[in-house]
């Protein structure tokens, strides 16, 4: 088997295929044509270096792109929510429709926080270090999925509120959902493309300090309590929402803590 044939096999094994693999083969083929005795290095080593270098570069780009998509989705959510006021405000809803809107609202509030936390953790990780590519990808995937839940909640709200609000509000809400969904889909593709490279094992991550996690949790629950009490003019409502926030934060920490490297893995 020639050097280039062996390289092709190794590139495939390291997740490098298609146009990119053809380009690499052509470049190294040209190198060998210039100097048939060139010491290019073991094909497995060269393929591993390509996977590592490109995996890092593309993960960085995908992470920043995803963070921009999260920011756009947050802006779109603010736009459609803000547009409710000139459209006549929240209608009084009861029965099944009211329940659906409440559940969608709950999903939006909770998933938005997961998206924010996972997105911030992901972007701060790639800004600081380049040996944690897999973890950064995992954090951004979590953030994108959570943000997709937010967008789905917005879509449910748009259809549930449509009969009670002017058509222009429905158009604004749908346009917001469309813009967010397009940005999220594009980012998900980018993260997916960066994930296909075979990368070396990553170092174990120390979980965040417990005091920091507890302080963040207390801050989030207090903010929810006080904010809800102020908006709804009701301490009972504030305490109820604070309790829901506490339960949801704890649940998310248990469910996603290991995935996001916030708490020790089982083997650690």
């Amino acid at each position, binding site marked *: 088997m020639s050097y280039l044939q062996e390289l092709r096999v190794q590139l495939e094994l390291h997740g490098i295929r298609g146009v990119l693999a053809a*380009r*690499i083969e*052509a*470049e*190294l083929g*040209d*190198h060998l*044509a*210039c*100097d048939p005795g*060139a*010491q*290019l*290095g*073991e094909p497995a*080593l*060269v393929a591993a*270096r*390509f996977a*590592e*270098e*490109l995996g*890092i*570069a*593309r993960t*960085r*780009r995908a992470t920043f792109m995803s963070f921009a998509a999260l920011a756009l989705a947050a802006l779109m959510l603010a736009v459609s929510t803000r547009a409710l006021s000139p459209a006549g405000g929240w209608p009084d809803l009861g029965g099944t429709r009211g329940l659906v809107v409440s559940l969608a609202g709950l999903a939006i509030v909770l998933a938005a926080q997961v998206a924010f936390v996972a997105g911030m953790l992901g972007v701060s990780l790639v800004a600081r270090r380049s040996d944690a590519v897999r973890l950064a990808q995992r954090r951004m995937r979590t953030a994108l999925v959570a943000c997709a839940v937010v967008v789905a909640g917005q879509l449910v709200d748009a259809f549930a509120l449509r009969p009670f609000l002017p058509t222009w509000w429905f158009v604004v809400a749908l346009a917001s959902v469309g813009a967010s969904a397009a940005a999220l889909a594009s980012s998900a593709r980018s993260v997916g493309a960066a994930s296909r490279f075979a990368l070396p094992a990553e170092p174990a991550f120390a979980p965040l300090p417990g005091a920091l996690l507890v302080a963040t949790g207390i801050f989030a629950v207090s903010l929810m309590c006080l904010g809800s009490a102020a908006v709804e003019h009701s301490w009972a409502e504030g305490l109820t929402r604070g309790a829901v926030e506490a339960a949801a934060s704890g649940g998310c920490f248990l469910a996603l803590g290991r995935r996001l490297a916030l708490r020790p893995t089982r083997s650690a």
Partner: protein
Amino acid sequence: MKAEALKGHLDGLVLATLEDGPLHGYAVIERLRGRSEGAFDLAEGTVYPVLHRLEAEGLLSSAWSAAARRRRRVYRLTRRGRTALANRRADWRRFAGAVEAVLA
């Protein structure tokens, strides 16, 4: 000089070889070898991944050229690449000056 010693400096060295004009991969490695008078003991194939990454980071751009009846990928510095090279050069001078001051 072993490749290990070049860790952290290879990006700057590759950018510097492209400062005077566009080059294809083989010429980049030849210039690197020529300017260092053969001091760097590099597996030549490992320079290409660096070229690809620098391009992905926007510091280089590349295009196929058909000179000498062969398709070749030619790399050139971008504006961001020139800025990055200037920064790396300044960092290196500070670092080398400090090491020299201690060792001398």
